[in-house]
Each structure stands twice: as structure tokens, then as C-alpha cells.
């Protein structure tokens, strides 16, 4: 018989080691679908590693992919900390991207040090507003934010499509539904010559550190933790739950919006409906892998990005479906959830026996 007893105090190995172990197990488990697909397993692993880390180019690609994942991961982490279940990072990302394009494609012009902060602010504000609405509906009327934020993703994507066929459409695009390009002074400069990795990465890392400081060391962070862990007690002690939730919504939506800005201004240069291959949803996985720790989000975003980039390149080389990457990421999430459970509970396997 199996019994579970709660642990009173998990040690550092359990807290930091378990996610790493879970990620490793997930990668090892990928051998099963690889074998089923008839691929040479060791070669496939080798190709995955070189695909993600084999050259400056591949590392740059991996970091480029990690940039929006860090931001959407942070968006999910801070929201989930306050038990605000924001499933709408994808929509907030597109709204942020659209705001950046609306302002950054020639309506205003200026030097880079004006234009880049300007489109960042615009994108963050747009993303924040997208989440503040559902949050007020939740705190005032008790409307479930999982439903509203999830459904808003589809509304936003259709709205973006409409705008790309209309007001934002690039007349020079030969009929493709895409926006006018971001002007040069608003483009995020690359970090390395002829590579795609751009200053969005530095901004994302800065956000992670800032968020960690905010959560751990500030009054706001204190209130966010209190509301997230026990809202009635926070309310009783005089903390305004609504204000705190709106603050969290602004941070979370803003970070997701920033991911959109970073993608249009750093990677793509214009807005199209295939801007994000689901970064908003992947951010949830990233945050869960990181156990909602802002600094942990950096590590888990790098992991997820290297799996995606590595598996992509491997699948091209040996002709296996690149969906394998999604499979590994999904398995890592499951392993972390199981690991999280084992961190909180001690498992006993009892032989049926007499007491002695």
C-alpha cells in the first residue's frame, strides 16, 4: 500500500534538484517516441545538442527563442503567484505587438533612445489593459478569469487579422496580411553582428531580476504574496485585494505585451498573425517548470527554448516530426508536477505487516 505523509520542511535538494531531475527525465523519456519513429537514438540526441548549442548561430537562435519565453514565463509566474490565472498571455502578446506597430511604423519618429522606450511602454500598456479588464470582472463580479482570458486570445487574434486586412495593412506587402514594418530607429539592435539575438534578451533578463526583487523585497511583493497565499487573511489585515490584483494584472499583462513588442521590433520587424507560435501558452509551462520563481523562469525558458531549437534542427536532419519538441516540453511539465508533489509529500511503500 502507498501512503503519503506531508513533509514539514523540504530541503534545498528537493526545491532546486527536483525540477532539474524532472527535465532530465523528460529528455530521457523522449527516447521512446524517437525509437518508435525508427530514428537512431544516440545520433538524435547528439543532433539535438548541436542544434541548440553547436555553434554561435545555434546559441543565438536558442537565445532568440528564449527571449519571448522568459517574458511570457514571467507574466504567468507573477499572475499565478497571486492566484490570478492568466491564460491570456498569447492575446496580450499580440496586443502589445500591435501597439508597438501602431506607434513604431512611422506615425511618430525620433532617435532610438526615444522610440524604443516609447514602443515598449505602448506595448506594455496595451497588454496590461487586456488583463486589467478580466481582473476587474473577477474581483467585482466573480467572473472566472480562466474563461475570459482564454477566450480573449481568440478575439484578439481575429482582431489582429481584421486590422492587418484593414487599417494596419502594409500597402507594399503585395496582398499579404501583414503590417507596415517597424521603422529603423525603433528596431531592437542585435547583440551580435549578423545574428538574430537582440537586446530584447537583456530587457527580459532585467525584467526577471526586477520581478524577483519586487516579489521578495518590496511592500508590493509582500502584498502580492499575501493575497495569493490567503486572500481572506490579506483582506482582513487591511490589504486591498482589488488593488493588488490590478497591480498584478498590469505587471503580468505588461510583460506579455513586452514579449510582443520584443518579437516585432527584435525578430520579425513587422506584425503578422504567425508572430507567435504559442509563446503565451508556452509561458505557462515555463512558469510551472520554474515553480513560479522569476529567476527560475530564466533557466526554464532556456531549457524550453533549447528543446525547441534542438529538436527542430534534429528533426530536419533525420526526418522526424518536430512535434517531438512539444512532446518533450509537455513531458517535462508532467514530470515537474509529479516532482512538485513528491517535494511536498513523503511516500511510504508499506508491506502489509504486523506492527512490532
Amino acid at each position, binding site marked *: 500500500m502507498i501512503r503519503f505523509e506531508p513533509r514539514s520542511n523540504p530541503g534545498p535538494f528537493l526545491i532546486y534538484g527536483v525540477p532539474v531531475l524532472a527535465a532530465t527525465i523528460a529528455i530521457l523519456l523522449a527516447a521512446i517516441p524517437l525509437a518508435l519513429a525508427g530514428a537512431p537514438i544516440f545520433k538524435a540526441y547528439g543532433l539535438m545538442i548541436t542544434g541548440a548549442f553547436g555553434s554561435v548561430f545555434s546559441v543565438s537562435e536558442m537565445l532568440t527563442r528564449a527571449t519571448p519565453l522568459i517574458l511570457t514565463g514571467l507574466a504567468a509566474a507573477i499572475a499565478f503567484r497571486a492566484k490570478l490565472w492568466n491564460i491570456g498571455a498569447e492575446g496580450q502578446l499580440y496586443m502589445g505587438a500591435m501597439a508597438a506597430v501602431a506607434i513604431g511604423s512611422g506615425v511618430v519618429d525620433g532617435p532610438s533612445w526615444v522610440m524604443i522606450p516609447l514602443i515598449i511602454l505602448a506595448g506594455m500598456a496595451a497588454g496590461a489593459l487586456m488583463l486589467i479588464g478580466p481582473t476587474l470582472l473577477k474581483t467585482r463580479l466573480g467572473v472566472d478569469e480562466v474563461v475570459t482570458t482564454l477566450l480573449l486570445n481568440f478575439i484578439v487574434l481575429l482582431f489582429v487579422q481584421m486590422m492587418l486586412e484593414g487599417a494596419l495593412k502594409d500597402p507594399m506587402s503585395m496582398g499579404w496580411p501583414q503590417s507596415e514594418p517597424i521603422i529603423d530607429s525603433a528596431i531592437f539592435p542585435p547583440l551580435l553582428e549578423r545574428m538574430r539575438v537582440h537586446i530584447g534578451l537583456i530587457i527580459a533578463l532585467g525584467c526577471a531580476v526586477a520581478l524577483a526583487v519586487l516579489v521578495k*523585497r*518590496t511592500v508590493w511583493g*509582500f502584498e502580492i504574496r*499575501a493575497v495569493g*497565499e*490567503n486572500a481572506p*487573511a490579506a483582506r*482582513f489585515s*487591511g*490589504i486591498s485585494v482589488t488593488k493588488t490584483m490590478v497591480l498584478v494584472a498590469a505587471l503580468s499583462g505588461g510583460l506579455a505585451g513586452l514579449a510582443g513588442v520584443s518579437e516585432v521590433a527584435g525578430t520579425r520587424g513587422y506584425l503578422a498573425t504567425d508572430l507567435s507560435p504559442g509563446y503565451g501558452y508556452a509561458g505557462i509551462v515555463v512558469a510551472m517548470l520554474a515553480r513560479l520563481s522569476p529567476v527560475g523562469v530564466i533557466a526554464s525558458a532556456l531549457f524550453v527554448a533549447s528543446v525547441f531549437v534542438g529538436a527542430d534542427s534534429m528533426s530536419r536532419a533525420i526526418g522526424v516530426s518536430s512535434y517531438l519538441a512539444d512532446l518533450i516540453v509537455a513531458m517535462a511539465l508532467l514530470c515537474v508536477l509529479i516532482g512538485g508533489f513528491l517535494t511536498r509529500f513523503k511516500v511510504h511503500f508499506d508491506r502489509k505487516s504486523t506492527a512490532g
Partner: protein
Amino acid sequence: MSSAAHISPETSHDLLLSLAGVTKRFGALVANDAIDLTVHKGEIVALLGENGAGKTTLMNILFGHYVADEGTVTVARRDGGLEQLEPGAPQAALDAGIGMVHQHFTLAENLTGLDNIVLGTEPIFRLRRDRTKARAKLNELMAGSGLNVDLDQPVHKLTVGEKQRVEILKALYRDARLLVLDEPTAVLTPQEADSLFAILRKLAATGLAVIIIAHKLAEVLAVSHRIAVLRGGAKVGEMKTTDADHNSIAEMMVGREVPVSRRTAREPGKPVITLNDVTIDRGDSRRSLHGVSITAREGEILGIAGVSGNGQAALAQLIAGLDKPDSGSVEIFGDKIEKFDAHTFAQNGIARIPEDRHHDGMVGSMTVAENIAIEDVRSPEYQKFGFLDFDAIRKRAEHAITDYDVRCPGPDAPARLLSGGNIQKLILARVLEKSPRLILANQPSRGLDVGAQSEVHRRLLEARQGGSAVILISEDLDELLTISDQIAVIHVGHITPAMPTDAIDRSELGLMMAGQKAAPHAPHATKTTNPGETA
């Protein structure tokens, strides 16, 4: 399969349960230390002990939730022979006829009493529900014991006392021969408790064995046949109830002399808070007040007596700053309050002790220090430019831990590790340290053991002596009569005028709580009615 250890039936023909040398360790902590306990048929045994004495662990071992490190649990089979209970197997305990009524009921609120009772005893796949047999058996049980409940009402419509009866019926329906009740009176009015005891005595007379886990001495003395006292995981005493006396048991439980709280005479000062004709209508008598006018003065404890769910919650919410009146006004030191807001109230000298200390009183995953500072993190003492001053927060916690004797691993330990009594000390430390002008104490000693209770009373009396006004909302009449200067009774949202405690008769108070008697103008009007009949 478990091994059967037979003991000759001659020596133990009445024995139902025997725990021998039960020891359970959690790491370095010895939760149960070689405990022996026997229960016979038809016997009511009270298991007394403070929080953390090991009562719950022992019962968890009995029910197979935990496996004892040492020792055995032996139960009489239905044919009389004794058999060792398989450790770590809840099903074996159920099969052996051990039934448990938890302090926090385990009922599905949206189902009827009958549904709840038969739940889990019926096959899952069935074409047709036939409950005539179940109903007949239950009717018989109810008639025999006095456990009368309307079984066709959804459970959420039942009173707390009725829910408890459903729980007991549930255990009896499954042919329990030993009933374990965990703190059964914690949620009951005095009258409800009396009627529960009458039922238990009736059941015991039919051969049911009962274990009551408790820490209220008076009740234990009233109902049990035998008392076993646990302290620090070990059994420190066992006696027949007829041989027991109140003080010696209290000392046995706590391990030292328990100071008795007494009010000393003190002239009340100026009014601190005045409610003028306050009405809060929330459509539900639990959460409404109707035309309430009360005044609490400096250096005075105003007790609010009442059966749970008569508007105490609304009164507490109002004074805590979490709700505002629909009509009427609230004055604090003569100033009419316009802004009802918990933060403002807490910062203006109102100490608030919540009714549910786990739910509203603390954030379990945050540290002891953070929980002590939680009301004040925005004040300049604990933050600069929005950044927390952890040194100041920790320093305050260290003071509080020493001054209020909060037993915890340290200021940085998560608050969820604390026991109920220590959580209450933490809350007292949080709110009393700031020399409040008004203290709202909502059920401040509910669920606490004798030692922690007397500590709460001492602190409240100390604050009263220092000039604070105290509003004490309580369902515990002994508490109210011991420390209040005046008592008002709340019933379906109405509050009677306050009466001086010395002029109050206990049974009259019971009648007023049941709404059967208005506040007396001459306090000695009638004293002949028996409060037991009003339950």
C-alpha cells in the same frame, strides 16, 4: 492478513478496545510515547490534553492513517474474541466498527442527510434506488437514541448541532461499536451540548463505547465515566470521573498551575465606540444587523453572547472595518466614521482578533515575522521607498515571540507550522503591541487549550486595565461571565441593551440567546425555567 492475538474471554469480556504501548515518532518529535488505553463496552472515555499533546496522532493511529512505530491496537471482534487491528489500514478500522466524528464535518452540503449517511454504503452501479431499508434502520436508530434530524433536508439547511447528529448517525448506520468524537462541543451552544451529552449517555447505555477528545473540563466531568490525560505525547494520568476534580485535571494537562483570570474592579471611562441604530441588511440573518445600538467604554469588556450565526459575523465585520452600515452611524471617540476600511481601522488603534484564525488571521506560507508585521508593512517603520526593512520586521517579531511566548522555530519559520494556540498568540502580539484603544475579540479562545485560553484572557484583562475598550464576541458563556464587565445578547441581528455581568443569571442568558426572553429591566425577574428545555 493480520495476526490474531487471542486473550482469554473471561478476563476481558467487556473490553472493546485496547491500545498497548503505542509510540509514534516524527523525526525527533515523540508524538505518542508508550500510551496504554482501554475502552469497555458502554463506557464513555474522555481523552483530555492540550493542543499538541498527541490526541489526534493517537486517533490517527487507531484509524490506520498512521502506523505506530511501536505498540499494538487490539479490538474485540463482534463475537467477543480479541483481535489485533491491522496497522495502517483505515478499512480494517471501519470493519472493526470504529466510527469517527471529526470536529470539521465531512458532509456534502448539497445532499440530504439521508444521502450523506448512505453515501459509500450503496453499490455504485444500480438501476434503482431503494432506501426503505436504510430509512427504517435510521428511524430505529433515531428513536432509540434521540438523535432526531430531518433526513430529507439538504445538509446546508441544517444547524451545526443537526449536522453533528447526521455525522453520528452516519457512524451508527455503519454499525459502529466505538464512536470517537473530536472536540464535539466546540461548535455547539450550551443547550446543544447538554442534549448531545444526553444522547451519548443513552447510546452508552445500549453498549456503545465512546471516546471524546476534549479540552473543556466542565463538559468532560459532566459526561464521561473515565478520564485519560495526555501531555507532551505521554499519558500522565487516568482516573474515574467520580474521583476527578477540576483543578487537579487542569494542572495535569498543562503541567503547571493554571492562573485563574479575574476581573478587578475598575471604573469605565469615556465611550470609545458607539453604534447608533445600525442596520446592515444582507438578506440573511447570519450576516445582518437590525437597529443595533451599543457602546463600549475605556477600561471595560463588553461581552456579546449569542448562538452562532445570529449576526455576530456582521457585527465583527463592521467593527473590523470590512463592511459599512446601510443606515445608522458608528462613532469612535465621538467622531462619526465615514470611511469603513480595514487598513484605516487597524492604523487607528483598533485591534482586531478574527473569528477564524487560520482562515483570516494568518498567511500560512509566509513567515512568522511577516505575519506579525502584516498590518503595518506600509508604515514608514517597516519600509523605505516601498522596500521592506527586514531587520525591523524581524526585530519586532523577536520581541513578540519572547513577550507573547509564541512557540515557533524562529521568526523566519513559515506560520503554518504553528499550533492553534501559538497562532492566536501571534495574532495577539500583532494587534496588542500597538496599545490599541479598542479591541475586537471574536471568539478569541475557541478551540484553544486551557493554558492558551487563560493566556488570552490575561492579555484582554491586561489591555482593559490599561484603558482599552474590548468587545468580546463569544459563544462560551463561562468565558463571557468570567471576564466581561457587561454582557449584551445578540439574536437574529438584534442586540439587547448591555447588562452588568454581576446581575446576570446564567440560565436567563441561555433563554435570551435562544430568543425566548427579552432583556430584563429588573434582572431578577424569573429564574425558574430550565434552560435545557430550550435546546
